[in-house]
Protein backbone atom coordinates (compact mmCIF):
# COMPACT_ATOMS: atom_id res chain seq x y z
CA UNK A 1 0.00 0.00 0.00
CA UNK A 2 1.27 3.39 -0.99
CA UNK A 3 1.28 5.97 1.75
CA UNK A 4 -0.78 9.02 0.88
CA UNK A 5 -0.60 12.57 2.03
CA UNK A 6 -3.25 14.88 3.38
CA UNK A 7 -2.10 18.48 3.21
CA UNK A 8 -2.72 20.58 6.35
CA UNK A 9 -0.36 23.56 6.40
CA UNK A 10 -1.23 24.95 9.78
CA UNK A 11 1.03 26.88 12.13
CA UNK A 12 1.56 25.02 15.39
CA UNK A 13 1.19 28.24 17.37
CA UNK A 14 -1.63 29.74 15.28
CA UNK A 15 -4.01 29.86 18.24
CA UNK A 16 -1.53 31.73 20.40
CA UNK A 17 -0.56 34.05 17.55
CA UNK A 18 -4.16 34.94 16.73
CA UNK A 19 -4.91 35.77 20.34
CA UNK A 20 -1.67 37.77 20.56
CA UNK A 21 -2.72 39.83 17.54
CA UNK A 22 -6.08 40.56 19.16
CA UNK A 23 -4.33 41.60 22.38
CA UNK A 24 -1.97 43.89 20.46
CA UNK A 25 -4.96 45.56 18.80
CA UNK A 26 -6.55 46.06 22.22
CA UNK A 27 -3.36 47.58 23.62
CA UNK A 28 -2.98 49.83 20.60
CA UNK A 29 -6.52 51.13 20.66
CA UNK A 30 -6.16 51.86 24.38
CA UNK A 31 -2.86 53.70 23.67
CA UNK A 32 -1.05 51.29 25.97
CA UNK A 33 2.50 50.34 24.96
CA UNK A 34 3.04 46.68 25.88
CA UNK A 35 6.58 45.52 26.62
CA UNK A 36 7.66 41.90 27.05
CA UNK A 37 10.83 41.58 29.15
CA UNK A 38 12.78 38.37 28.60
CA UNK A 39 16.02 37.19 30.19
CA UNK A 40 17.62 34.36 32.10
CA UNK A 41 16.96 34.07 35.85
CA UNK A 42 18.97 36.50 37.94
CA UNK A 43 19.66 39.06 35.20
CA UNK A 44 18.25 41.90 37.28
CA UNK A 45 14.92 42.07 35.46
CA UNK A 46 12.88 42.75 38.57
CA UNK A 47 15.11 45.52 39.90
CA UNK A 48 15.16 47.17 36.48
CA UNK A 49 11.38 46.98 36.32
CA UNK A 50 11.01 48.25 39.90
CA UNK A 51 13.06 51.36 39.09
CA UNK A 52 11.34 51.81 35.73
CA UNK A 53 7.85 51.71 37.24
CA UNK A 54 8.84 54.16 39.97
CA UNK A 55 10.39 56.60 37.47
CA UNK A 56 7.42 56.47 35.12
CA UNK A 57 5.06 57.03 38.02
CA UNK A 58 7.01 60.00 39.33
CA UNK A 59 6.94 61.62 35.89
CA UNK A 60 3.18 61.24 35.62
CA UNK A 61 2.88 58.18 33.40
CA UNK A 62 0.55 55.37 34.26
CA UNK A 63 2.11 51.93 34.15
CA UNK A 64 1.22 48.42 35.26
CA UNK A 65 3.03 45.09 35.30
CA UNK A 66 2.25 41.43 34.87
CA UNK A 67 4.91 39.22 36.40
CA UNK A 68 5.44 35.63 35.36
CA UNK A 69 7.13 33.12 37.63
CA UNK A 70 7.06 29.38 38.05
CA UNK A 71 6.25 29.72 41.75
CA UNK A 72 5.88 32.42 44.45
CA UNK A 73 4.60 35.97 44.24
CA UNK A 74 7.78 37.48 45.69
CA UNK A 75 8.48 39.57 42.60
CA UNK A 76 4.94 40.93 42.42
CA UNK A 77 5.12 41.94 46.08
CA UNK A 78 8.43 43.70 45.43
CA UNK A 79 7.05 45.54 42.43
CA UNK A 80 3.81 46.50 44.14
CA UNK A 81 5.91 48.64 46.47
CA UNK A 82 6.47 51.04 43.55
CA UNK A 83 2.78 51.94 43.84
CA UNK A 84 1.58 50.78 40.42
CA UNK A 85 -0.89 47.97 39.68
CA UNK A 86 0.95 44.64 39.59
CA UNK A 87 -0.33 41.13 39.06
CA UNK A 88 1.49 37.85 39.42
CA UNK A 89 1.08 35.11 36.85
CA UNK A 90 2.16 31.86 38.46
CA UNK A 91 2.75 29.38 35.68
CA UNK A 92 2.98 26.34 37.99
CA UNK A 93 5.97 24.85 36.27
CA UNK A 94 5.37 26.23 32.79
CA UNK A 95 8.59 27.72 31.46
CA UNK A 96 7.07 30.64 29.55
CA UNK A 97 4.03 32.88 29.32
CA UNK A 98 1.40 32.44 26.62
CA UNK A 99 -1.05 34.97 25.20
CA UNK A 100 -3.97 33.30 26.98
CA UNK A 101 -2.37 33.89 30.38
CA UNK A 102 -2.00 37.58 29.55
CA UNK A 103 -5.63 37.90 28.52
CA UNK A 104 -6.81 36.10 31.66
CA UNK A 105 -4.82 38.41 33.92
CA UNK A 106 -5.99 41.64 32.32
CA UNK A 107 -9.51 41.17 33.61
CA UNK A 108 -10.70 44.08 35.69
CA UNK A 109 -7.99 46.46 34.45
CA UNK A 110 -8.99 49.36 32.24
CA UNK A 111 -6.33 49.53 29.57
CA UNK A 112 -7.37 53.09 28.69
CA UNK A 113 -5.98 54.11 32.08
CA UNK A 114 -2.53 52.72 31.26
CA UNK A 115 0.28 54.25 29.20
CA UNK A 116 2.61 51.26 29.65
CA UNK A 117 2.06 47.60 30.39
CA UNK A 118 5.17 45.63 31.28
CA UNK A 119 5.13 41.86 31.08
CA UNK A 120 7.98 40.27 32.97
CA UNK A 121 8.36 36.86 31.36
CA UNK A 122 9.55 33.75 33.18
CA UNK A 123 13.35 33.77 33.54
CA UNK A 124 14.32 31.63 30.57
CA UNK A 125 16.18 32.40 27.35
CA UNK A 126 14.75 29.53 25.33
CA UNK A 127 11.00 28.99 25.49
CA UNK A 128 9.61 32.56 25.65
CA UNK A 129 11.08 33.27 22.21
CA UNK A 130 8.35 31.24 20.48
CA UNK A 131 5.36 32.94 22.12
CA UNK A 132 3.97 36.26 20.99
CA UNK A 133 2.15 37.84 23.94
CA UNK A 134 0.70 40.73 21.98
CA UNK A 135 3.53 43.03 22.98
CA UNK A 136 4.68 45.99 20.89
CA UNK A 137 8.24 45.60 22.06
CA UNK A 138 10.30 42.62 23.13
CA UNK A 139 13.25 43.56 25.28
CA UNK A 140 15.97 41.03 26.03
CA UNK A 141 18.05 41.62 29.14
CA UNK A 142 21.60 40.39 29.56
CA UNK A 143 23.61 41.07 32.70
CA UNK A 144 27.36 41.57 32.68
CA UNK A 145 27.73 38.63 35.07
CA UNK A 146 26.36 36.16 32.52
CA UNK A 147 29.06 35.99 29.90
CA UNK A 148 29.34 37.71 26.56
CA UNK A 149 28.46 34.67 24.46
CA UNK A 150 24.83 34.33 25.62
CA UNK A 151 23.53 35.77 22.32
CA UNK A 152 25.42 33.08 20.39
CA UNK A 153 24.10 30.36 22.68
CA UNK A 154 20.48 31.53 22.51
CA UNK A 155 20.08 33.19 19.10
CA UNK A 156 16.26 32.98 18.71
CA UNK A 157 15.48 35.05 21.80
CA UNK A 158 18.02 37.72 20.89
CA UNK A 159 16.93 37.62 17.31
CA UNK A 160 13.25 38.06 18.14
CA UNK A 161 13.84 41.06 20.41
CA UNK A 162 13.60 44.74 19.50
CA UNK A 163 16.05 46.04 22.09
CA UNK A 164 18.82 44.54 24.20
CA UNK A 165 19.60 45.94 27.64
CA UNK A 166 22.89 45.08 29.29
CA UNK A 167 22.26 45.29 33.04
CA UNK A 168 24.43 45.51 36.16
CA UNK A 169 27.07 47.56 34.32
CA UNK A 170 28.25 48.82 37.71
CA UNK A 171 29.78 45.32 38.06
CA UNK A 172 31.35 45.25 34.59
CA UNK A 173 34.87 45.89 35.74
CA UNK A 174 34.74 43.50 38.68
CA UNK A 175 33.65 40.60 36.46
CA UNK A 176 35.96 41.61 33.58
CA UNK A 177 33.02 42.04 31.23
CA UNK A 178 34.14 42.15 27.60
CA UNK A 179 31.88 44.91 26.32
CA UNK A 180 33.06 44.83 22.70
CA UNK A 181 32.49 41.09 22.44
CA UNK A 182 29.01 41.36 23.97
CA UNK A 183 27.95 44.10 21.55
CA UNK A 184 29.40 42.21 18.58
CA UNK A 185 27.64 38.98 19.59
CA UNK A 186 24.27 40.68 19.99
CA UNK A 187 24.61 42.35 16.60
CA UNK A 188 25.79 39.12 14.96
CA UNK A 189 22.45 37.44 15.72
CA UNK A 190 20.44 40.63 15.25
CA UNK A 191 22.13 43.21 13.01
CA UNK A 192 21.29 46.82 13.92
CA UNK A 193 19.76 45.91 17.28
CA UNK A 194 19.60 48.95 19.56
CA UNK A 195 21.51 48.26 22.78
CA UNK A 196 21.31 50.12 26.10
CA UNK A 197 23.72 49.74 29.00
CA UNK A 198 22.12 50.21 32.37
CA UNK A 199 22.67 49.88 36.09
CA UNK A 200 19.33 49.96 37.84
CA UNK A 201 21.26 50.10 41.10
CA UNK A 202 23.29 53.25 40.41
CA UNK A 203 20.87 54.74 37.86
CA UNK A 204 23.41 54.87 35.01
CA UNK A 205 21.63 54.53 31.67
CA UNK A 206 18.13 54.71 33.17
CA UNK A 207 17.39 58.06 31.52
CA UNK A 208 18.19 56.61 28.07
CA UNK A 209 15.96 53.61 28.77
CA UNK A 210 13.04 55.83 29.83
CA UNK A 211 13.55 58.04 26.80
CA UNK A 212 13.54 54.94 24.59
CA UNK A 213 10.19 53.89 26.09
CA UNK A 214 8.63 57.31 25.56
CA UNK A 215 9.87 57.51 21.97
CA UNK A 216 8.53 54.02 21.24
CA UNK A 217 5.16 54.89 22.70
CA UNK A 218 5.00 58.08 20.65
CA UNK A 219 5.92 56.11 17.52
CA UNK A 220 3.27 53.48 18.26
CA UNK A 221 0.64 56.21 18.72
CA UNK A 222 1.67 57.82 15.43
CA UNK A 223 1.33 54.46 13.69
CA UNK A 224 -2.21 54.06 15.09
CA UNK A 225 -3.28 57.56 13.99
CA UNK A 226 -2.11 56.89 10.45
Amino acid at each position, binding site marked *: *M*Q*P*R*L*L*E*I*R*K*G*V*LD*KNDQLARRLRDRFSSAHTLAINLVSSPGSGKTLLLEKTLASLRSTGYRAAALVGDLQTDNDAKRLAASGVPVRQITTAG*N*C*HLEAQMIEDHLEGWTLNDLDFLFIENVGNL*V*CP*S*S*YDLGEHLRVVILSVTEGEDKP*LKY*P*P*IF*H*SSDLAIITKIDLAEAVEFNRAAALANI*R*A*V*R*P*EMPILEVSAKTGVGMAEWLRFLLVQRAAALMAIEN
Partner: protein
Amino acid sequence: MHELSIAHNVVEIASHAANEAGINRIQAVHLKLGALSGVEKDSLLFCYEIAAEGTRLQGSRLEIDEIPVAIYCPHCDDILPLPGVQALCCPRCGTSSADIRQGYELEVISLEYESSDEPELSL
Protein backbone atom coordinates in the same frame (compact mmCIF):
# COMPACT_ATOMS: atom_id res chain seq x y z
CA MET B 1 11.13 22.96 28.09
CA HIS B 2 8.19 24.09 25.98
CA GLU B 3 8.50 21.28 23.43
CA LEU B 4 5.89 19.23 25.29
CA SER B 5 3.25 21.92 24.87
CA ILE B 6 4.35 22.36 21.23
CA ALA B 7 4.01 18.56 20.76
CA HIS B 8 0.50 18.65 22.25
CA ASN B 9 -0.42 21.37 19.76
CA VAL B 10 0.93 19.27 16.88
CA VAL B 11 -1.09 16.25 18.02
CA GLU B 12 -4.20 18.39 18.43
CA ILE B 13 -3.89 19.92 14.95
CA ALA B 14 -3.15 16.55 13.30
CA SER B 15 -5.96 14.72 15.16
CA HIS B 16 -8.43 17.42 14.24
CA ALA B 17 -7.45 17.27 10.55
CA ALA B 18 -7.54 13.45 10.52
CA ASN B 19 -10.94 13.49 12.16
CA GLU B 20 -12.34 15.94 9.61
CA ALA B 21 -10.99 13.83 6.76
CA GLY B 22 -12.09 10.51 8.28
CA ILE B 23 -8.57 9.08 8.45
CA ASN B 24 -7.79 6.54 11.16
CA ARG B 25 -4.41 5.02 10.43
CA ILE B 26 -1.93 7.87 10.45
CA GLN B 27 1.63 6.82 9.77
CA ALA B 28 3.40 10.12 10.05
CA VAL B 29 2.99 13.83 10.65
CA HIS B 30 5.20 16.09 8.55
CA LEU B 31 6.39 19.27 10.19
CA LYS B 32 8.50 22.20 9.03
CA LEU B 33 10.83 23.49 11.72
CA GLY B 34 12.77 26.72 11.16
CA ALA B 35 16.15 27.29 12.76
CA LEU B 36 14.77 30.44 14.44
CA SER B 37 11.54 28.86 15.69
CA GLY B 38 13.00 28.44 19.15
CA VAL B 39 12.05 24.75 19.18
CA GLU B 40 14.64 22.02 19.58
CA LYS B 41 14.26 19.07 17.20
CA ASP B 42 15.35 16.22 19.47
CA SER B 43 13.25 17.45 22.40
CA LEU B 44 10.25 17.76 20.13
CA LEU B 45 10.69 14.20 18.82
CA PHE B 46 10.92 12.90 22.36
CA CYS B 47 7.87 14.87 23.48
CA TYR B 48 5.85 13.88 20.43
CA GLU B 49 5.79 10.24 21.51
CA ILE B 50 4.50 11.24 24.93
CA ALA B 51 1.92 13.64 23.52
CA ALA B 52 0.66 11.09 20.98
CA GLU B 53 0.09 8.39 23.57
CA GLY B 54 -3.55 7.44 23.92
CA THR B 55 -4.53 9.40 20.80
CA ARG B 56 -5.10 8.21 17.25
CA LEU B 57 -1.55 9.35 16.55
CA GLN B 58 -0.02 6.86 18.94
CA GLY B 59 2.80 5.01 17.20
CA SER B 60 2.97 7.47 14.30
CA ARG B 61 6.23 9.13 13.27
CA LEU B 62 6.97 12.82 13.44
CA GLU B 63 8.94 13.72 10.32
CA ILE B 64 10.74 17.01 10.81
CA ASP B 65 11.96 19.03 7.86
CA GLU B 66 14.54 21.43 9.26
CA ILE B 67 14.55 24.80 7.51
CA PRO B 68 17.74 26.84 7.66
CA VAL B 69 17.68 30.61 8.00
CA ALA B 70 17.85 32.41 4.67
CA ILE B 71 18.58 36.11 4.38
CA TYR B 72 18.33 38.59 1.58
CA CYS B 73 21.74 40.11 0.85
CA PRO B 74 21.32 43.63 -0.60
CA HIS B 75 24.88 43.55 -1.94
CA CYS B 76 24.52 40.26 -3.85
CA ASP B 77 20.82 40.93 -4.55
CA ASP B 78 20.13 37.31 -3.70
CA ILE B 79 18.45 35.16 -1.04
CA LEU B 80 20.97 32.83 0.58
CA PRO B 81 20.62 30.06 3.18
CA LEU B 82 22.94 30.31 6.19
CA PRO B 83 24.91 27.46 7.73
CA GLY B 84 23.80 28.47 11.24
CA VAL B 85 21.96 31.12 13.23
CA GLN B 86 24.92 32.67 15.02
CA ALA B 87 25.80 35.22 12.38
CA LEU B 88 23.21 36.88 10.20
CA CYS B 89 25.53 37.83 7.40
CA CYS B 90 25.85 36.88 3.76
CA PRO B 91 27.82 33.62 3.35
CA ARG B 92 29.12 34.94 0.03
CA CYS B 93 30.23 38.52 0.72
CA GLY B 94 29.92 38.94 4.50
CA THR B 95 27.41 41.83 4.44
CA SER B 96 25.27 41.64 7.57
CA SER B 97 21.53 41.54 7.00
CA ALA B 98 18.47 41.24 9.24
CA ASP B 99 16.20 40.75 6.24
CA ILE B 100 15.15 37.18 7.01
CA ARG B 101 13.27 35.32 4.31
CA GLN B 102 12.91 31.92 6.02
CA GLY B 103 13.71 30.22 9.30
CA TYR B 104 10.70 30.99 11.54
CA GLU B 105 8.63 28.00 10.35
CA LEU B 106 6.78 25.91 12.90
CA GLU B 107 4.08 24.38 10.78
CA VAL B 108 2.24 21.09 10.38
CA ILE B 109 2.49 20.43 6.65
CA SER B 110 0.73 17.11 6.07
CA LEU B 111 -0.42 13.77 7.37
CA GLU B 112 0.80 10.52 5.90
CA TYR B 113 -1.72 7.66 5.97
CA GLU B 114 -2.31 4.25 4.43
CA SER B 115 -4.00 4.40 1.07
CA SER B 116 -6.60 1.79 2.04
CA ASP B 117 -7.83 4.36 4.48
CA GLU B 118 -9.34 6.75 1.94
CA PRO B 119 -10.64 10.01 3.28
CA GLU B 120 -14.38 10.32 3.00
CA LEU B 121 -15.07 13.05 0.54
CA SER B 122 -17.57 15.47 1.85
CA LEU B 123 -19.62 16.83 -1.04
